[in-house]
């Protein structure tokens, strides 16, 4: 066979499909099957004709497959990326329930979370990558809805046990001239509203809570327990809780009996109250305000926290958050199981916050 074929085209076999040497019949041995398929041999067809047929059909096949694959992979036109937190206005009270249907209409911005890696103690690993932020504004408040993944639910504070938490940070002064996103600057303070799961879930009866955790613990007596007069007893109990007696705002959110009049700072907020307002002027300067003005609520959905924080709108337009002003907000997240507390946290950069007039 090879000798017969020897008379055909001089062009090497690997470049051209073999053509019938006598243009009369196809040989399944020399005219390879693929070519037979592409250009079935017709008696009398010239070699040039057959080549042309093959060429045009291969070209058409390529064009067709390209067209098909393009049609398959072409993404739908991308939705415009959400690059700012646009607070939607609602006529009634914006809901504190993060699962309320009113939130469906608010666009969510996925804000990247970064490990706090500026001051020691630093947060070594960034856990959850983003926090989803939505906002609604009503007559007097801007309400943030914050959603992030946290597979472990930490609702308690104890020795070596820390609470899940989230915070909203706004510049104190409205407008675009914002301080460092990391806790503000000495002459440019930030206001921070902090929600903690442990605050929301603090036990009403601290004695029962302790007894539940340590059923075999025996306590000889508390000196204040002997006082018959409840007012005297409570006054004594505050004296035996030094931070409480010093008016420490953290203890206001702790499971303690309220101080009697004239003792130990503001009364504790009602059960379930979970947000503390504070001002900061740089690292380590967080100072809680004596009376919290914001409120909030957190719920779990699967492996995620959905927390709302409602912050009253500022009375003066030069303060944030003010209606009709474009400003910035930043966020932070703490995972209790990862021993996140204080500086050990994930935080975001400033993101634009638009509040409608």
């Amino acid at each position, binding site marked *: 066979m090879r000798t017969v074929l020897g008379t055909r085209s001089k062009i090497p076999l690997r470049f051209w499909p073999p053509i019938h040497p006598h243009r009369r019949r196809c040989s399944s041995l020399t005219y390879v099957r693929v070519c037979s398929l592409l250009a079935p041999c017709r008696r009398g067809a010239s070699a040039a004709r057959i080549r042309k047929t093959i060429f045009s059909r291969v070209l058409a096949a390529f064009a067709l497959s390209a067209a098909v694959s393009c049609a398959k992979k072409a993404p739908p036109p991308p939705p415009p990326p959400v690059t700012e937190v646009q607070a939607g206005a609602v006529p009634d009270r914006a809901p504190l329930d993060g699962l309320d249907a009113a939130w469906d209409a608010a666009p969510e911005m996925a804000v990247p979370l970064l490990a706090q890696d500026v001051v020691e103690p630093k947060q070594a690993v960034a856990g959850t990558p983003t926090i989803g932020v939505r906002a609604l504004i009503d007559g007097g408040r801007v309400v943030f809805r914050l959603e992030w993944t946290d597979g472990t639910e930490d609702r308690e*504070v104890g*020795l070596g046990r820390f609470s899940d938490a989230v915070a909203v940070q706004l510049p104190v002064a409205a407008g675009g001239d914002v301080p460092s996103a990391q806790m503000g600057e000495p002459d440019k303070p930030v206001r921070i509203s902090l929600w903690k799961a442990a605050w929301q879930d603090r036990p009403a009866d601290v004695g029962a809570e302790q007894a539940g955790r340590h059923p075999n613990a025996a306590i000889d007596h508390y000196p204040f327990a002997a006082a018959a007069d409840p007012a005297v007893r409570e006054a004594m109990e505050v004296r035996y809780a030094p931070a409480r007696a010093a008016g420490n705002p953290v203890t206001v959110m702790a499971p303690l009996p309220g101080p009697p009049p004239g003792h130990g700072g503001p009364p504790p907020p009602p059960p379930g109250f979970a947000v503390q307002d504070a001002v900061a002027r740089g690292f380590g300067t967080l100072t809680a305000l004596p009376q919290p003005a914001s409120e909030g609520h957190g719920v779990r959905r699967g492996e995620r926290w959905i927390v709302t924080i409602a912050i009253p709108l500022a009375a003066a337009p030069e303060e944030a958050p003010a209606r009709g002003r474009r400003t910035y907000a930043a966020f932070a997240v703490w995972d209790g199981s990862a021993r996140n507390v204080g500086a050990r946290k994930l935080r975001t950069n400033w993101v634009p916050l638009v509040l409608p007039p």
Partner: protein
Amino acid sequence: MARVFNHQLGRVMSYWFPENRPERQFAAVFDTNKCIACQTCSLACKTTWTSGRGQEYMLWNNVETKPYGFYPIGWDARLLEALGPQAWKDGVYEGRTIFEAAPAGERLIGFAPEELDYAHPNLGEDESAAAVDKGAHLIAGRANAWMFYAARICNHCTYPACLASCPRGSIYKRREDGIVLIDQGRCRGYQECVRGCPYKKTFFNPVTRTSEKCIACFPKIERGLQPQCFANCIGKIRSQGWVSTPDAAREDNPIDYLVHVRKVALPLYPQFGLEPNVYYVPPVHVPAPFLVQMFGPGAPAAIETYRSAAHDRTLAGLFTLFGCTESTIARFAVRGDTAIAWGNDGEELVRVPVREPVTIRAPWDESLAVPRWNIP
């Protein structure tokens, strides 16, 4: 980090703040050879300061049996293991302090105890380091099995780790007496100090959700009185006073005399690098390697000096003054057979005989026809 001088290490070291010594520094000497683990000190502290809610587990003063006692469990063993080799050469520490060994992103190397680590304050109580088999003995000086009691309070360190680890600056060292305190109005309960203090002498209160620590009974100190755990010590093992830096040591200052002049009292785990201000006379019957690990390379010499006290009137007189007054002893002298103590304002506090008079009576009372007991 700043470079500061730590005289217990014989070298400069890294610390988070520049050297800033107080006008005078609270200090104490504990003679471990006299402690009987009666826990009167623990109870004196407990009833004075920590009987509120959330303080149930706290022992600002605790007494543990070494080598197997810990409060909280493993407080020193865990850190010693993490710290790596701790070699000394000619009195200079060649290893790393807890500040120098800090992992990236941390202020120091530490660990956070769990809740249950505090649940057994008497763990290992009276357990000796080896089995006391037939024929073995626990006689001081010749023991082949040993244990001793370590009474512990906050050391009111010159370079406090609790203070360095607080990101809020809620912990401060008082200029007037060097006492280290947590600002109870400012603490937010991050528990960084609990993790950071190598001696585990800051405590988290789960009810107030803030941290608390030994306050050296500062209301008493301010009135020239020794803290409760000193004043109530049954074994008279403790004396509170003021310590100077070695170059400014005064021979008539009892703490300076024991620490700098006679070098008979040594810091607890000086290699941690905090310059702790509670000094210990090491137990005389414990093997040197354990003592060197716990009190530094001066331990064998300190024991020699302590053994010589029987023939050393000044040393014996000073130890006799321990526990003889509730007031802080700022100055002392031994004149003839009498040891004398003066207070902060130069007022004389007490005079005691260096050797108590001893009368040995005949064991049989002829007049009453009864046997007598001679009680030392």
